[in-house]
């Protein structure tokens, strides 16, 4: 009972500690063929393929190339062929697909496909891409279909999109500024690096149905896109998603599902499965965007922000996928959680010959937070002001407007001040202190804010049915990828129906045929959107229970209450009927019955959100914000340049902690990922655009023992009044300000501003050496 607010274990937890939890590649029906990719070994080249030999190898059923497929796909801009046609645009791009009876046969034949490359000039950096006379990654950019506006491509360039914020009068802002600072930043692309690689299986039945199983975060998007690309009715396409082994945004992109469908179509509809190798998962499937940014802030002598001018160049690699949406999300919150009257922001989605990019945990907000917070620290230095004080002075609050002119309330914003004050308290101490002959302890702090930047018409739904014993079944369209979304929904339903959490049975797997649509399991929105639908479904079920019970108990429905599996007279709980006696119709002693099966229905659609104006950026990008303050203490060795994060602090406004242990561990995990991004992670390309780190031994994530000695996570609870029980989104947020906080601490330690990621000892040595050489 009282499920909300309790640390309820994940529903599927017992299966996860016994090896019985099933993921996509664990469920393969007998007779499934295996597909293997042939991927490009050049970053930019014209290609010619020779596949005849592979086609005739033992066990091979079919070989597909770009010539066999006439299709351009893309979430926002349709710029990506599923298999390269004529030329390749990144190292690792799929050029052919081999379908065979077994994995060994498929891989052997894939190696036998001959690809002749005629190299083209490689666009290997954002600077290359925007330089005059740059080689074009896409010659026909102007002709691509805009699948999901707004998107503003610039033909005959490498600029796939330009998003803007124009707010106030920049000239006036600079006139009012006594102090100005500017910073230039370069952050690499990053890997999602979920331990489960992406996987998809497709089968086309003779009745026309298409069965797809995959690791997607967006089963309903897969369904819609396959229907659109291949001229199917949406109902013909049935997408199922078992448990997902980590996603972090990377599994919201639709890629392998399209290839699996093409593969099945090429072999008369037989089931075909495609599983990424680790190397493919890192180099062939999309990564998180890289960012080059120029940021300029102006403030009055008292330290009040007057103007912000920001230019972002997002390295989207070879294709856009969702990057134009990421760019708009960054524009929406481009100032950080501060009040700035005059804002000018330009975000360019830039093509390069890098692996293409998609959403990454935080949807652009970890790089955004990095560049803003680093510039705020520079401003504090210039004003000779305590960085915490500068932030406190400029914090945005209820009554203020965001860069998109969205008016804020306490409910929509939360309490950034409470987060900042508490984090500053937890991190009290000098910014830099000598703790030994060669050791320095340093501290750094940063703030974040984030709204969802989701489509204004995003929907969710919930269906509640009953079992004969009075327990309930809950169906939602959210994917369980580790965030515990199904359990949260079960908690909400248990709370509203007054049931024990054990009496709420969930559909762990998603099936688009029977589960109500949930837009996508992204943007940390499941608690809010699915939760609202569950609340409505609970009320719907309760109303139906009461209407049948009212007849049985000879009273008005309004006289009744629902709790503990019973519908009872509010005035006298001893007069009641049990759920089990009415949920499938009430049967009188004579055998005659009334009522019928009770099905609770709930749905939710976003309210009052709008697309952003193309010229000014004005609009309403999300229902609420999650704000927080994070900080670290590091120990730096002055001789080797090595450092370690010894303590990490997060104070986040959770609205309401629905599941305290779940929230804390989710945030802590995000903090660990954020420290990884700060200290070691980053996609590397060679001079020819070849991928240098496509394995865990070269793309280094955090390992045990590298985590801080102490994590401190505290929650502020300012309810979001239109959210279930006041809970705010939390799934992405643990990592958002960690890289900025680590950079602040390292800057204090070495006495020089750090504007890059990842912050490795070698990069610090370079930084110091460059600074000394310039002297």
């Amino acid at each position, binding site marked *: 009972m009282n499920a909300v607010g309790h640390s309820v*274990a994940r529903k*599927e*937890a*017992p*299966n*996860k*500690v*016994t*090896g*019985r*939890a*099933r*993921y996509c*590649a*664990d469920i*393969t029906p007998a007779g499934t063929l295996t597909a293997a990719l042939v991927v490009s070994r050049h970053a930019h080249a014209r290609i010619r393929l020779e596949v005849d030999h592979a086609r005739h190898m033992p066990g091979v059923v079919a070989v597909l190339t770009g010539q066999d497929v006439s299709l351009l796909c893309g979430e926002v801009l349709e710029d990506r062929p599923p298999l390269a046609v004529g030329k390749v645009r990144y190292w690792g791009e799929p050029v052919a697909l081999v379908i065979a009876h077994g*994995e*060994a046969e498929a891989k052997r034949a894939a190696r036998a496909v001959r690809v002749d490359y005629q190299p083209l000039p490689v666009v290997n950096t954002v600077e290359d891409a925007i330089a005059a006379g740059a080689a074009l990654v896409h010659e026909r950019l102007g002709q691509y279909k805009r699948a999901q506006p707004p998107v503003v491509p610039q033909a005959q360039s490498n600029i796939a999109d330009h998003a803007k914020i124009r707010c106030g009068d920049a000239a006036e802002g600079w006139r009012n500024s006594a102090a100005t600072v500017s910073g230039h930043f370069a952050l690499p692309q990053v890997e999602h*690096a*979920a*331990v*489960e*690689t992406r996987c998809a299986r497709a089968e086309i039945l003779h009745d026309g149905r298409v069965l797809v199983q995959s690791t997607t975060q967006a089963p309903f998007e897969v369904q819609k896109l396959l229907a659109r690309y291949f001229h199917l009715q949406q109902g013909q396409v049935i997408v199922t998603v078992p*448990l*997902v*082994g*980590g*996603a*972090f945004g990377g599994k919201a992109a639709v890629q392998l599902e399209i290839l699996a469908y093409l593969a099945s179509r090429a072999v008369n509809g037989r089931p075909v499965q495609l*599983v990424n*190798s*680790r190397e493919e998962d890192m180099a062939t499937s999309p990564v998180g965007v890289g960012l080059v940014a120029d940021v300029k802030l102006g403030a009055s002598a008292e330290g009040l922000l007057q103007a912000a001018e920001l230019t972002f160049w997002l390295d989207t690699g070879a294709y856009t996928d969702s990057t134009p949406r990421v760019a708009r999300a960054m524009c929406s919150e481009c100032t950080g959680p501060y009040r700035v009257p005059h804002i000018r922001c330009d975000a360019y989605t830039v093509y390069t010959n890098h692996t293409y990019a998609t959403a990454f945990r935080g949807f652009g907000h970890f790089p955004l937070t990095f560049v803003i917070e680093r510039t705020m620290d520079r401003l504090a230095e210039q004003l000779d002001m305590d960085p915490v004080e500068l932030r406190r002075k400029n914090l945005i609050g209820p009554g203020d407007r965001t860069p998109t002119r969205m008016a804020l309330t306490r409910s929509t914003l939360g309490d950034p001040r409470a987060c900042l004050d508490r984090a500053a308290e937890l991190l009290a101490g000098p910014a830099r202190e000598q703790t030994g002959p060669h050791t320095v302890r340093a501290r750094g702090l940063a703030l974040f804010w984030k709204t969802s930047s989701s489509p204004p018409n995003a929907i969710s739904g919930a269906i509640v049915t009953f079992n004969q014993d009075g327990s309930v079944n809950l169906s939602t369209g959210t994917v369980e*990828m*580790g*965030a*515990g979304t199904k359990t949260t929904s079960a908690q909400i339903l248990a709370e509203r129906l007054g049931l024990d959490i054990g009496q709420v049975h969930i559909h762990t797997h998603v099936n688009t045929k029977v589960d109500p649509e949930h837009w996508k399991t992204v943007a940390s929105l499941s608690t809010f959107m699915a939760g609202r639908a569950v609340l409505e479904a609970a009320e719907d079920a309760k109303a139906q229970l009461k209407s049948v019970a009212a007849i049985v108990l000879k009273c008005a429905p309004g006289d009744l209450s629902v709790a503990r599996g019973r519908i009872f007279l509010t005035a006298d709980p001893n007069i009641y009927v049990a759920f089990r006696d009415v949920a499938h119709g009430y049967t009188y002693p004579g055998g005659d019955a009334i009522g019928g099966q009770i099905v609770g229905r709930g749905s939710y659609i976003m309210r009052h959100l709008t697309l952003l104006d193309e010229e000014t950026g004005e609009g309403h990008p999300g229902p609420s914000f999650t704000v927080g303050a994070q900080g670290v203490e590091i120990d730096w060795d002055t001789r080797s340049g090595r450092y370690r994060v010894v303590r990490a602090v997060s104070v986040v406004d959770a609205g309401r902690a629905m599941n305290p*242990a*779940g929230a804390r*561990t*989710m945030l*802590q*995990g995000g*903090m*660990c*990922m954020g420290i990884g991004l700060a200290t070691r992670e980053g996609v590397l390309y060679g001079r020819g655009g070849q991928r240098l780190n496509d*394995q*865990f*031994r070269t793309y280094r*994530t*955090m*390992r*045990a*023992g*590298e*985590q801080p000695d102490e*994590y401190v996570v505290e929650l502020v609870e300012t309810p979001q009044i239109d959210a279930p029980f006041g809970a705010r989104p939390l799934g992405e947020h643990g990592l958002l300000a960690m890289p900025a906080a680590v950079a602040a601490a390292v800057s204090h330690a070495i006495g020089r501003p750090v504007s890059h990621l990842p912050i490795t000892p070698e990069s610090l040595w370079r930084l110091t050496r460059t600074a000394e050489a310039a002297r």
Partner: protein
Amino acid sequence: MATSHTGRAEHLITVNGEQRRVTLRPADTLLYILRDELGLTGAKPGCENGDCGACTVLVDGVPMKSCLLLAIEFATPEEPAAGAVPRHIETVESLDETEVQRQFLDHWAFQCGYCTSGFLMLAEGLRRQRPGASPGEVVDWLRSNICRCTSYAEIIQAVRGTLERERSAPPPV
């Protein structure tokens, strides 16, 4: 013993205390045979080159990465030589209400659960091989596997908790 031209042949291997008859090629990894031939999908592929440890199983009680082992190394002849002891493979499916599983649940030592089987087997191997492991040694062992969801603190606490519990438990009667 029938052998096809691909070298595929029938062999016996001992998994979770059961003798299982499998058809394998000399090049098949133990991970592949466990998952695709025996249906033991608890061990997961994450990198198939030993970097991530999601495929960790116990071989005679010692944690090993099954993506780096050839299944044929564990094949026993139909009539083993006198005194020969078959090498015994244990997968996560053999764990049943053990302390290490309870500790992983209590400490929220997983989120998506994909790396969990590997971490559990690693921890179980540590418990058996080094029951007196120091806190530092625990971390050294855990460094062989990757988790992308948790902060590692939860996993380390679960494993230390397992060892502490073991040490304070009364000896079996």
